[in-house]
């Protein structure tokens, strides 16, 4: 009890302003490619369930984060691309950004903080943007990661929820969270709960009836690390980091991992398979793996949506044992259907 009070004291120092309405949505490369159901669910929850105004702009592009963190584009290029997004937002009449990717969120913040310290950089970028696109922009009033918005409305979501993060017997599910390095490690004050004890996902777990689990490597990198994955020679290092986290959380027997960042969700999920193939090491009950959910999927589940509509069939780790444990009534046969279309069923060679 005392311990939790201690964490609350830390969280109290890291309260963050999150806009209540009128969001300009920034897509995530990885989320839209690998977790499209999550993206769709976020827009649905904010727009339809919570009834907020959110604009998904077709003119929006990548933030260049992957290339930037792989040392392929210079900061000025990135800043100009981001400035264009600000311009798009300004043109669309919005002031609040909802960013769907941790790395984008980190980069937007980084660029804004750079401009704060070095206004001449902002001037330069305004100039570049004008020359390239004849666009101008206003600095957003509020920048939030999409998980911040879900966190912001976690209690409203809990009120509308039809399910809770509990098993069939009503015992809370043990949930470990993974925040993602670029969320708050760059600027601790920009993350809910700060960098060391972030509360953004833990707050959702608390609000929706689960039990958040702390473990020694909670803050460690998922292993993506851009260059570490993208350069083949470094890939062993990438998988080693996921391995380290999985080993560290293993004794706590978590029911699921919830991830903040689309990249992290993907790597914690996919690398479990790789580790099993490489070393025969498995995690989770009966060696079935620990399901890795995005917070949108977690929110979708408690709001009562069909797991297959959330895109959970695209996971490497099968989520069905978790669904059974939670007592969710789902259609196993629907796993490979998307509307009327039959999805290709993967086979093992």
């Amino acid at each position, binding site marked *: 009890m005392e311990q939790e009070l201690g964490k609350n*004291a830390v969280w109290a120092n890291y309260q963050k302003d999150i806009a209540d309405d009128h969001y300009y949505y920034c897509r995530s490369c990885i989320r839209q490619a690998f977790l499209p159901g999550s993206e769709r669910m976020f827009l649905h929850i904010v727009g339809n369930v919570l009834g907020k105004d959110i604009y998904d702009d077709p003119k929006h592009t990548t933030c260049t984060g992957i290339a930037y963190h792989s040392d392929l584009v210079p900061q000025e290029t990135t800043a100009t691309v981001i400035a264009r997004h600000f311009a798009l937002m300004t043109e669309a009449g919005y002031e609040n950004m909802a960013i769907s990717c941790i790395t984008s969120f980190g980069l937007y913040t980084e660029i804004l903080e750079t401009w704060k310290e070095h206004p001449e950089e902002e001037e330069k970028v305004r100039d570049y943007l004008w020359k390239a696109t004849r666009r101008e922009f206003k600095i957003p009033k509020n920048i939030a990661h999409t998980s911040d918005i879900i966190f912001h409305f976690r209690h409203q979501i809990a009120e509308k929820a039809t399910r809770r993060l509990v098993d069939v017997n009503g015992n809370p599910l043990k949930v470990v969270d993974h925040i993602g390095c670029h969320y708050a490690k760059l600027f601790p004050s920009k993350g809910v709960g700060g960098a*060391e004890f972030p509360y953004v996902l833990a707050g959702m777990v608390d609000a929706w009836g689960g039990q958040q689990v702390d473990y*020694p490597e909670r*803050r460690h990198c998922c292993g993506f690390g851009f260059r570490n994955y993208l350069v083949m020679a470094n890939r062993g290092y990438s998988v080693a980091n996921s391995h380290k986290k999985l080993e*560290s959380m293993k004794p706590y027997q978590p029911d699921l991992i919830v991830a903040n960042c689309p990249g992290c969700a993907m790597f914690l999920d996919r690398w479990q398979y790789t580790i099993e193939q490489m070393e025969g090491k498995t995690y989770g009950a009966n060696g079935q793996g620990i399901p890795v959910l995005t917070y949108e999927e977690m929110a979708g589940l408690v709001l009562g949506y069909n797991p297959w509509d959330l895109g959970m069939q695209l996971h490497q780790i099968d989520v069905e044992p978790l669904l059974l444990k939670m007592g969710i009534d789902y259609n196993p046969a629907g796993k490979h259907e998307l509307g009327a279309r039959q999805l290709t069923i993967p086979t093992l060679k």
Partner: protein
Amino acid sequence: MKHIAIIGGGPAGIESAASLAQLGYRVSLIEKSAELGGHLSQMFTLFPDGRNAAEVLSELIAHARQKNINVMLNTEVIDAQRNLSGFTITLSNQKTVTADALLIATGFRLFNVARKEEYGYGIYKNVINSLQMEKKLRTGDLTMANGQMPKRVVFLHCVGSRDEKVGNNYCSKVCCVTAVKQAIEIKKMNPEIETFCFYMDIRMFGPYYEELYREAQEKWKVVFVRGKISEAAENIDGRLQIKAEDTLIGKPLRMQCDMLVAMAGMESTADAKFAQTLNVARGLNRFYSSTDNYLRYNNTNVEGVFTAGTCTAPMNIIDTIANARAAALSIHQYFSK
């Protein structure tokens, strides 16, 4: 008879009061808590020779038991004004006192270890600060939060000192030798407990401190690892997992321990309202600054306002007492002009 108001009843305040009274001054010793002694009253033994802190304090207090000293306990200084005749000091008990000179001896504030979030102070029960360890030693109870005896205690030097990220660029001087002393005291009480010190530099500035360091290594088998701990986390057994770089090897090091003692640094108390009203100058380190570091250490920029002890810079008890006497003499010189 000139009247001097001393703010703060720690070792510096007590000893300067005693010295001033001996020099023929009337003294008001204003202490906000219910007892004299300041941080010294919370200490177990003093380095380098293991002298009992309570004994030293009681001798200091006995020395200050003089007829010209008026001790005002439970009294806080709300504000102070300088006027033609000297100082008018507003106290928390609605009273005011006037004085011909003011001696600030407000000591230091212990760095709040919770500000270094990565160590989980206030979150993990067995992460404690150095003063809490001092209390454990004083009460002879080394047990952890669960009542069990720790198997391994790790001391982390320089918490809140030499750290730009918390705004303290200075060295708090006494933490290194305090860690060494505490590690030895633990070993004396229970030789089974493994003790480690994680340090950036070992700064043994005082006489016999280096000898104590060596004794810790040689006789008490305290292990020293050069490298600052980057984070602590609790594992499933409730033990703490710490990470550091062993900089002498150039490799990260991971270790489990049962108790992590953060050697909290000293922070300035010079942000008091009365000091701001009087415009007493502060240095870059936020402690009170002197008009001359060599010749007039105890004099501030405000005429008639003097300082003594750790409100001017981190100091050990020996230096604090000497500095308190120096402050008394500085005041005497001021009035003898």
